[in-house]
């Protein structure tokens, strides 16, 4: 449905508020009062909070008006529950990260006025990625996310690790973007249009030959695979995650990854698949011009999770360990993508919804430890269970949730993924994934072991407490709460995810007559 300019804008309030906040933060930093310690952070967090509120309101509006999707800007941008879900996820991540960063001393020392605008721009990039339905818009959105991310990775300017991370990220990122652009140019050449709908129609007509589709597919997968750190494009992940400031790592591994998945689903399900029954996008999907890309993604998923899990074994640095774990999780998430069914997409969305909390939580624990005199090596976590009981309990909960043990949210997410696989005949894949998640326990437990099984104090008096302060405590609790609650009663999140997939899913090919 096409709308006028003013009506268009009303669906974009979250993005508008985000942009206004961005401007306000820059202005405040340049021209505000001299002593504005923490003011920038507070403003950015408030802006993100308001954005989040508007996302939720828009969500409700879509539901109340029974609108499954609203196209804006000549069909190049869509507001639908699917994109709103990812905006919600990205908004929550950005908000949490803005709150974490407010208490990180090194961020303050390097200039809050630079950190927060960059964070806001990346968030805006993810918001755009969630909604674009046009190749050009897609590239712009991805770069809006990427370029500030490169800077954020190198935010600690005099830190060699941080600079290295930034350089690696730029080099890999540029290569991946270039490959993807090359692939997209094939797509344009095949369809003669940049609009997803147009491309879908062209693809559906069967004009494209297998060779060019395969080539395009491979090249685009490089670009997207890089963003979600799927093997074999994952090599940057450990170095960048380890070297970057931990708040940035937390952002890259959650919000940025969610954005990558949003674009992956939207692109592939719009242009390379069509629903089996027209008008029922939540059901079965059929790949178009199939060069077997579902099997290809299945293989990528298996390789990704296996590499991630095996490489994590030997890590001694917690950040690096979590980096490999996030590679493994990209592999799990891809499982839902393979199924070609609404239930698989729903499982992915659900998993992302739970994953961000547990992963953010785990990184927050890392920040809280290193901000309070601890290190980032596993050996620095020895005896933490006695030195900081609440922190250690949270960390253990997040790690067990990442492993997928009930009654924690990560378990439920995995069940939905495996269920989608089993339901649609991918039992072997479910078995591989299940065994993978069982062995992943081994390295997550290494951190838990260090916290609880090692460095046990002989006497009560021997304990050197590590106090994390109320700010980090509250933030930890905010991550812990959904991790536990969605493990015990997850119906609301499941409903939200189902609705977000079911009502709209990605764009489907419309008959040409509908184009006006």
């Amino acid at each position, binding site marked *: 449905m096409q709308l006028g300019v003013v009506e268009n804008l009303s669906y974009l309030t979250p993005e508008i508020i985000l942009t206004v906040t961005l401007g306000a933060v820059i202005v405040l930093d340049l021209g505000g009062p001299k002593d504005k310690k923490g003011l920038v952070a507070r403003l950015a967090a408030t802006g993100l909070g308001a954005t989040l509120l508007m996302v939720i309101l828009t969500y409700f509006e879509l539901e109340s008006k029974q609108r499954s999707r609203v196209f804006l800007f000549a069909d190049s941008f869509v507001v639908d529950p699917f994109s709103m879900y990812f905006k919600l996820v990205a908004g929550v991540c950005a908000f949490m990260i803005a709150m974490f960063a407010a208490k990180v001393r090194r961020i303050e020392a390097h200039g809050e006025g630079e950190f927060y605008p960059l964070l806001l721009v990346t968030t805006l990039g993810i918001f755009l990625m969630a909604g674009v339905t046009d190749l050009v818009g897609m590239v712009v959105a991805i770069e809006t996310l990427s370029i500030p991310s490169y800077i954020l990775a190198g935010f600690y300017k005099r830190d060699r690790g941080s600079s290295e991370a930034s350089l690696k990220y730029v080099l890999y990122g540029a290569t991946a973007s270039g490959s993807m652009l090359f692939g997209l140019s094939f797509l344009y050449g095949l369809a003669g249009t940049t609009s997803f709908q147009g491309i879908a129609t062209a693809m559906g007509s069967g004009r494209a030959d297998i060779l060019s589709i395969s080539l395009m597919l491979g090249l685009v997968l490089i670009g997207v695979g890089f963003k979600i750190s799927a093997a074999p494009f994952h090599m940057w992940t450990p170095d960048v995650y380890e070297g970057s400031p931990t708040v940035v790592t937390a952002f890259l591994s959650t919000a940025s990854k969610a954005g990558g998945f949003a674009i992956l689903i939207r692109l592939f399900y719009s242009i390379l698949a069509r629903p089996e029954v027209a008008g029922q996008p939540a059901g079965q999907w059929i790949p178009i011009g199939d060069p077997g890309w579902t099997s290809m993604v299945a293989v990528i998923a298996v390789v990704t999770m296996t590499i991630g899990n095996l490489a994590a074994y030997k890590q001694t640095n917690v950040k690096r360990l979590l980096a490999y774990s996030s590679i493994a999780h990209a592999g799990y998430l891809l499982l839902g993508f393979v199924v070609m069914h609404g239930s698989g997409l729903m499982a992915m969305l659900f998993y992302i919804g739970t994953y961000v909390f547990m992963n953010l939580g785990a990184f927050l624990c890392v920040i809280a430890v290193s901000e309070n005199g601890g290190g980032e090596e596993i050996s620095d976590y020895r005896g933490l269970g006695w030195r900081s009981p609440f922190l250690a309990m949270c960390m253990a909960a997040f790690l*067990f949730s990442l492993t997928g043990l009930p009654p924690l949210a990560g*378990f439920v997410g995995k069940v939905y993924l495996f269920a989608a696989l089993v339901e649609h005949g991918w039992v072997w894949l479910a078995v591989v994934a299940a065994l993978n998640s*069982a062995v992943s*326990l081994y390295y997550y*437990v290494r951190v838990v072991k260090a916290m609880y099984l090692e460095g*046990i104090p002989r006497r009560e008096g021997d304990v050197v407490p590590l106090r994390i302060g109320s700010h980090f405590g509250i933030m930890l609790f905010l991550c812990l709460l959904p991790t536990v609650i969605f493990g015990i009663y997850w119906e609301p999140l*499941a*409903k939200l995810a189902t609705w977000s997939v079911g009502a709209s899913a990605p764009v489907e090919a419309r008959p040409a007559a509908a184009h006006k």
Partner: protein
Amino acid sequence: MNHLLSLMTFVPLLGALIILCLPKGKDELVKCIAACAAGVPLFLSFFLWKGFDRTTASLQFVEKADWIPMFNIQYSMGVDGISVIMVLLTALISFICIFASWEIGKGVKGYFALFLLLETGMMGVFCAMDFFLFYVFWEVMLLPMYFLIGIWGGPRKEYAAIKFFMYTLVGSVLMLVVMLVFYFNVTDPATGKHTFDLLVLRNQDARSGSLMLEGVRDLCFLALFVGFAIKVPVFPFHTWLPDAHVEAPTAISVILAGILLKMGTYGLFRIAFPLLPDMANKYATFIGVLGVINIVYGALCAMAQDDLKKMVAYSSVSHMGYCLLGMGAMTTAGFNGAMMQMFGHGLVTSMLFLCVGVIYERVHHRWISRFGGLATMVPVYTGFVTFAFFASLGLPGLVGFIGEAMCFIGGWQSVNPVFQKLTIFATLGILLGAAFHLWALQRMFLGEKNKIYTEQYHHVTEINGREIFCLIPLAILVLAAGCYPQPVFDLMNVSMSELQSFIAHYPK
């Protein structure tokens, strides 16, 4: 009492939460709360015992509520003859173990909170009648167990804890996949929806899709079997057991051997057999052979041990083999025998581990060869150990004998001709069992005092009141059920014969 089972399951959890909220340094209060929280299920189990209808195989004390309607997951609890004995046993042994861990030195708060969480998990496993709920409880148990072994265990506790954790988790993720296969291929005839309800899942007419293929059923059964066999533990999946049992603190060894092992055989009874009866028949011989290997191999391993605790641990491997023999026989007597053996072994092995704990607390080692002539120094303790050893080796009049004898009778009655040979071979286990028990008894308690290590146990003191308090109820039950096992059989018999005839309906 409509919510009896829920109360029995969740009161310990409530106790754990209360304990976590207490301030530091209130160790005595923590212990009292733990004792109360574990006492409530024991108290309620009297009502369960009295109210349980022994004439029906259907579920009793049923509670049902929607949990996740979207996925049709239900909070569904209930007991029948298969589970009621295990629920009673869990309530009793958990309560005793609270007192067995009274002297735990460090981290009292954490220990008892985790212990109560463990009790919730165990109760839940035995009461859950929804596969998903069962799975959740099954896994919930792992976490406290890991910490209880890992923090409060012996010298190699870290290795033992992670080994236990990994083994069980690998087994249970396979179970998860099988669970999903069942979910998507079974439709509840009443509602037309997929379901996790165990009673519907065993309805062979409600099936469709890939479950109709024999190959798929084969794989499903084997995956379930491996999942449960790890817990039992069945040879060759038993290697976690000696490590975990030996390193765990006394009370946790008791829980491990007394209850956790039974979850494996319970899972076979509750899930693997009724859900895939034709496969149960197909693999019956296989199960029986593994059972005999367990019996003989476990007994031989036990004989070779110098560490008393390890000997007791391997004797568990041997005793659980009788259960497998009885189960594989697919006769009512065999099933009853297996269940009786689960019950009897739960009591006896708890006594054994408690006894091991008593001596370890006094001399801080468990090497059989370093003892000698203890009987003159600690006669009362010697009496308890002797009683437990005789129960364990299957002396008539004590409960161990009943279970073993029933398993042999069941094996002999089996229509499967292999089982008679297996049963004959399995009787070797009785001989070996008697041998290693009596030999250990002789080396430790009789004869001369060990010259080399004598100075180490100058200070061996007699078993104290708290320890006797833990052992007495078990000893009474061992004797009572050994002399007059009928009340126990009454509890299970109807359900077991129902299960047996159900399985017999589906020949391989």
